[in-house]
């Protein structure tokens, strides 16, 4: 009975599956995951950042940047959007070898692959946000 249920599950999954998995090269390779799993995984990183500190991460998504006028700092992010583009999840990143913005960065919305070390940056208000440090960014 269990084999029948498993076979049905896999048959359904085969209809929709996008990419096969790869070999483990990172602590967490989000680029291998489906959109739904990425959302869940990134949510975990945001909710429980201490579990992921120092882990080497690889993710793919779309490039996004934002300039904070108060901090006078530009943030770069790798964002994953869902079908309705309303439930986006993403992580900020900081390149190991800084580049000039905007000349040496991809255009907003371009597909990118980012890998680096997970960190949590605390802000003055007592909050904070997760960020990938020492990152390497490639356009797809």
């Amino acid at each position: 009975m269990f084999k029948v249920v498993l076979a049905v599950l896999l048959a359904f999954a085969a209809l929709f599956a996008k990419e096969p998995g790869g070999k483990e090269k990172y602590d967490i390779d989000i680029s291998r995951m489906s959109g739904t799993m990425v959302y869940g995984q990134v949510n975990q990183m945001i909710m429980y950042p201490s579990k992921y500190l120092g882990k080497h991460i690889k993710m793919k998504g779309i490039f996004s940047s934002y300039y904070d006028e108060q901090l006078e700092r530009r943030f770069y992010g790798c964002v994953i959007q869902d079908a309705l583009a309303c439930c986006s999840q993403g992580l900020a990143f900081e390149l190991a070898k800084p580049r000039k913005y905007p000349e040496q960065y991809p255009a907003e919305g371009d597909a990118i692959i980012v890998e680096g070390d997970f960190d949590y940056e605390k802000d003055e208000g007592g909050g904070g946000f997760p960020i990938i440090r020492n990152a390497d960014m490639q356009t797809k």
Partner: protein
Amino acid sequence: MPELLEKLSFYLDFPFVRYAIIVGVLVSLCSSLLGVTLVLKRYSYIGDGLSHVAFGALSIAAVLKITNNMLLILPVTVAVAVLLLCTGKNARIKGDAAIAMVSVGALAIGYLLMNVFSTSANISGDVCTTLFGSTSILTLRIEEVYLCVALSIAVLAVFILFYHKIFAITFDENFAQATGVNTTIFNLLIAVIVAVIIVLAMNLVGALLVSALVVFPSLSAMRVFKSFFAVTVASAVISVVCSLIGIVVAILAGTPVGSTIVAADIVAFGLFYSISLIQGRGV
């Protein structure tokens, strides 16, 4: 196939995926059990109405910045369920009209409050997640999983303990009353359980799709099986299997969890409908 198995096994290593499967199975099991009663009592659409009420309550909780929003959502939804299911024939606004009024009213007020008293930078994201349950099942905290397990056990226990009374009230409330069953108390109990299930199911499929969990498995089972017991058991099995298929396909293929589960329920309904046609039972 081996690649899919490897991928599935890789995903199952993540605790949040295991939580989603546990909660998905429990919620679909509970909703299908009560679904049979609700469909037979002509209250198929109550799931939709109550989930919109829960959405309205969630908006109020967000505006009031209540950390544990369940403290507000659950009592409000239970209260409305009791009003809708227990006022019965004495109500001035009855049945489908009352459900429709409550449903759209709560949805509108909820969305209005979220916009006017915005507490989040991503209102459309919050609304979208609540209405379609895009991925909320994969963002559950362990406390929420424990709460869901406890409430599901309570629902299952009540259903099993009072199975005969629920059966009597479902088919003929007047006859049940004449034979000494306290129909008011049991209608109240059903209303409370329905509200609890709806609130739990919102995490799984979202407010707009909750009705599917209540209606589809029961209607599928009714195509082929005829006794109350057989329909209830078949409905539970169909619901759990469809939820499992939906969750697995959603995480493997990256589709939204709620709508994938409902799609699986629709396929199951088509399958059971075809079986009933082959058996010559007609529509």
